[in-house]
């Protein structure tokens, strides 16, 4: 009975959604090794249709890549007694450590405000800053500053026109992950749009993990901090002693 129902649902799904995304990625995990210097991920796919393409505006594609979110403090420097010090501060509940939006065209031409709000597509809609208006005057300035600082660091990117769409069927986009990546699950979302409305979407995950020596060092520092601290000392002592011994040998 349940199996039959599941089968029915499977059959029913394509009928309700006329256009469906079939997507793939060049890799679904990124390893941060000692020589990690950023990574490029190819996100590609096709639009599957059971019927001819529907009437209406042209098909558009948006791809977002979102790093793990954390609460952050945004601080503003002010001149106090002649020197510049962190003065006012605002806490933002949740801001992604990395966010890239790649599109087939200018965002305000292909996406309506309502669907942007509903699906949380641009980074402004992903950042959660509830109740910050009470924390400081001009709290909006702090959120703008957060966007500006992270954009300058290469953490937030808007790549308009960087999704290639061929024959309204095949699409591809390259997203560059920077070298200062944070570990965690990176959420990849793909949206198909017509007439500024989302008609289909899909989600994938890229796992970003430190590997090898990086993994070992990082884990040790978090799980056995005392052992880690002592090991750092032993290494320092060995290096200090070794170098002076080596140089004495050379001198003799």
């Amino acid at each position: 009975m349940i199996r039959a129902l599941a089968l029915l649902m499977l059959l029913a799904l394509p009928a309700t959604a006329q256009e469906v995304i079939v997507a793939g990625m060049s890799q679904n995990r990124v390893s941060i090794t000692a020589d990690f210097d950023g990574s490029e991920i190819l996100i590609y796919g096709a639009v599957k249709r059971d019927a001819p393409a529907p009437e209406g505006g042209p098909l558009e594609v948006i791809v977002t890549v979102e790093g793990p979110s954390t609460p952050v403090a945004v601080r503003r420097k002010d001149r106090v007694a002649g020197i510049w010090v962190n003065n006012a501060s605002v806490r933002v509940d949740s801001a992604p450590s990395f966010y890239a939006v790649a599109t087939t065209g200018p965002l305000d031409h292909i996406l309506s405000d309502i669907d942007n709000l509903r699906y949380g597509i641009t980074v402004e809609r992903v950042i959660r800053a509830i109740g910050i208006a009470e924390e400081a005057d001009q709290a909006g300035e702090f959120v703008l500053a957060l966007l500006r600082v992270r954009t300058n660091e290469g953490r937030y990117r808007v790549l308009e026109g960087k999704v290639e769409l061929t024959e309204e069927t095949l699409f591809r986009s390259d997203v560059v992950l920077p070298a200062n990546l944070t570990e965690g699950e990176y959420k990849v979302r793909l949206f198909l749009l017509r007439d500024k409305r989302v008609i289909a979407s899909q989600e994938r995950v890229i796992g970003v993990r430190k590997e090898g020596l990086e993994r070992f060092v990082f884990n040790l520092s978090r799980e056995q901090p005392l052992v880690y601290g002592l090991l750092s000392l032993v290494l320092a002592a060995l290096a200090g002693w070794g170098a002076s011994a080596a140089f004495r040998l050379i001198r003799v």
Partner: protein
Amino acid sequence: MQLYLPIAEVSVNAFLILGLGGIVGFLSGMFGVGGGFLITPLLFFIGVPPAVAVATGANQVVASSISGVLAQLRRKGVDFAMGGVLLGGGVVGSALGVWVFGIMTRLGQIDLFVQLSYVIFLGLIGAMMFQESLRSLLRARKPGGAPIRRAHVHSWVHGLPFKMKFRASGLYISVIPPALIGAAVGFLSAIMGVGGGFILVPAMIYLLGMPTKVVIGTSLFQIIFVTSFTTVAHAVNSQTVDMMLALLLILGGVVGAQLGTRVGVRLKAEQLRILLSLLVLTVSIRIAVDLLVRPSELYSVAGVLP
């Protein structure tokens, strides 16, 4: 060659770090200082987070001090009794410093706190050293030579209780002043990521009246243990010691230090002191400028605990 630092979570050029360690090592070998006061600000400039720079700087000082103390041990330049008293104070001061460091990080004022400490202490010590060495340089030029300095000047220091005999230094003084000096240096070590030799050495000579031949060795002895304690305390408390970064700095540093020592012996003591004081003043002014000039970006973003 790019290298991803596991704790700092930034990708840096490995040769840049090796070179940095080498240059600082060269200077520290030439002037006989630990070099922590140069390493930590330089790490700020290349984008290592301040908390990581301070903790890793302390780790680097351990290595350079061990390398230095071995040479001093061979020429019997370490007063273990005095080192022990300084160390006792140092551990207390360092623990206090790590605690304050944690509070300042939570308040978002750690950068300012570290920068102000650098400007004030480097500025003061640099100015004092510059004035002192300029005076002795001028005096050396004049005929008649240097005035005679008395070995033992009795002051209020000698009236304090808990007196102890320090055989290697030839002193019989209270343990309170050295313990306090040790504590002050330990505190600075924890918040500035330095060994504190630039404060310890003048304090030992001018405040405690120790003979010069045991000053360097004893200060290195104390610095090894205090910076070791600081390293472990930061590793446990804030997990900010980056082993890989430290190792690169140390490798570059020890090679540079050996070369620097050779250049150092060719220069006159007064010239060395003037150069060192100018270097200290330059670092202090460079950091002061950052505080005084309006920054191009007034806002900063930092991760906080949920």
